[in-house]
């Protein structure tokens, strides 16, 4: 029994209105943690005519119209490397004033603190990050395709079906937060934060760049998101 017919990924290889995106730039923040190639590949695939750069230059990040903040590995390492490159300030500034997409640890770092290495986050949002409690039937990391429930409508959810599956790989999640910013949730042992939205920030625990057509649609929505 099939749920529905799906769009093939290369039908999402999009053409945006060129005039609208003249001199438009997407900056993917590189602080030496993890693989940014996939994120960059995904933006080049859905919007080949829009400039997207992987960068650790605060000047370039400050000029970008869209900022993507990815993250892989352990949060203490991510925070340390971010500071080693002097990028904390520009990340906070970007998160305050332009469309900003956090991915995985890039979501977790926005909050006050994490149980992982008992480290402080950037403190842009109130809340804390905790580890899944492991049990016989609950493997850690939470790895694979899980359904994301959309708690609240948002332009970045446009054309994405209710309970669409996205690819996750993580052991920690944002446990305590202001419920009003939780815009997506998924279930793994308990319900957990899969996406948050606050003003110009949208951040996801899953990997849109690895989530086939639904992930590409989300990235497309992020580009088109007008505040």
């Amino acid at each position: 029994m099939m749920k529905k017919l799906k769009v093939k990924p290369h039908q999402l290889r999009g053409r945006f209105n060129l005039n609208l995106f003249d001199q438009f730039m997407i900056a993917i923040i590189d602080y030496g943690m993890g693989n940014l190639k996939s994120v960059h590949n995904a933006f080049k695939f859905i919007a080949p005519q829009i400039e997207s750069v992987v960068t650790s230059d605060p000047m370039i990040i400050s000029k970008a119209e869209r900022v993507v903040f990815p993250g892989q590995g352990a949060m203490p390492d991510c925070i340390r490397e971010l500071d080693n490159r002097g990028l904390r300030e520009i990340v906070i500034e970007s998160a305050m004033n332009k469309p900003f997409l956090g991915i995985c640890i890039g979501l977790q770092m926005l909050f006050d603190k994490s149980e992982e290495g008992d480290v402080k986050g950037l403190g842009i949002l109130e809340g804390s990050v905790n580890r899944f409690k492991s049990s016989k039937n609950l493997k850690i990391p939470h790895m694979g395709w899980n359904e994301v429930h959309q708690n609240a409508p948002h332009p970045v959810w446009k054309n994405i079906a209710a309970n669409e599956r996205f690819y996750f790989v993580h052991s920690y999640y944002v446990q305590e937060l202001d419920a009003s910013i939780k815009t997506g949730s998924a279930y793994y042992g308990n319900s957990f934060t899969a996406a948050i939205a606050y003003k110009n920030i949208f951040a996801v625990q899953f990997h849109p760049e690895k989530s086939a057509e639904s992930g590409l649609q989300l990235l497309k929505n992020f580009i088109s998101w007008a505040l």
Partner: protein
Amino acid sequence: MGLAKRIIPCLDVNAGRVVKGINFVSLQDAGDPVEIARRYDEEGADELTFLDITASSDNRGLILDIIESVAKEIFIPLTVGGGVRSPDDVRRLLNVGADKISINTSAILNPNLVAEASSRFGSQCIVVAIDAKKVGNHWEVFTHGGRNSTGLDAVEWAKKMVNLGAGELLLTSMDRDGTKIGFDIALTKLISEAVEVPIIASGGVGNLQHLVDGVLLGGADAVLAASIFHYGEFTIREAKEYMTNNNVEIRL
């Protein structure tokens, strides 16, 4: 509804070409890795695994070209294994777009490689492949396609690899590999219950019920198969429908 069990087709790559018989009638070029990867993606594969079986070191670099081309068009997780010997090998593969790197023999020769690679790149991208075979009343870790025993107990080895930082285990039964009589359920269950990380079951799949058994009886989080998909016996979509109809949660 929650996390779906994953179906992972495995592609054997030799000198830049996919070599295990591919039977997609409509493909222009049956050995082209990008075309094959695209087809599996369209059929609904949850991940792809590339196994580099290139014997000559001259051709080793070709896997990098392949992964780079596939990663530009296919947006699902890509795992690469075969011939990974050092943290630099891991880095090179990640840099061209691989998401996870599978380490097998090198982990046995140098267990510290697993620790080094996972601390540098994160355990989410380090998969340890274990080839196990029953010897007496337990399972031992084997190398060289099941010919050489290491004397290591498979359960102890699995625990050790997870402690060193493996984020996932790819478990292949060398007794079942190529037999088409189904996964070694007892082995899969034993390892799955012994460690916290997800287990990919491999070796022995001959029909779709075997995939269901691997998950429901063996406790596998993902199932890997090569020949049933390559030779066109079943499509991934058929496998997914079958599993869904047999109470396995699947991404459709």
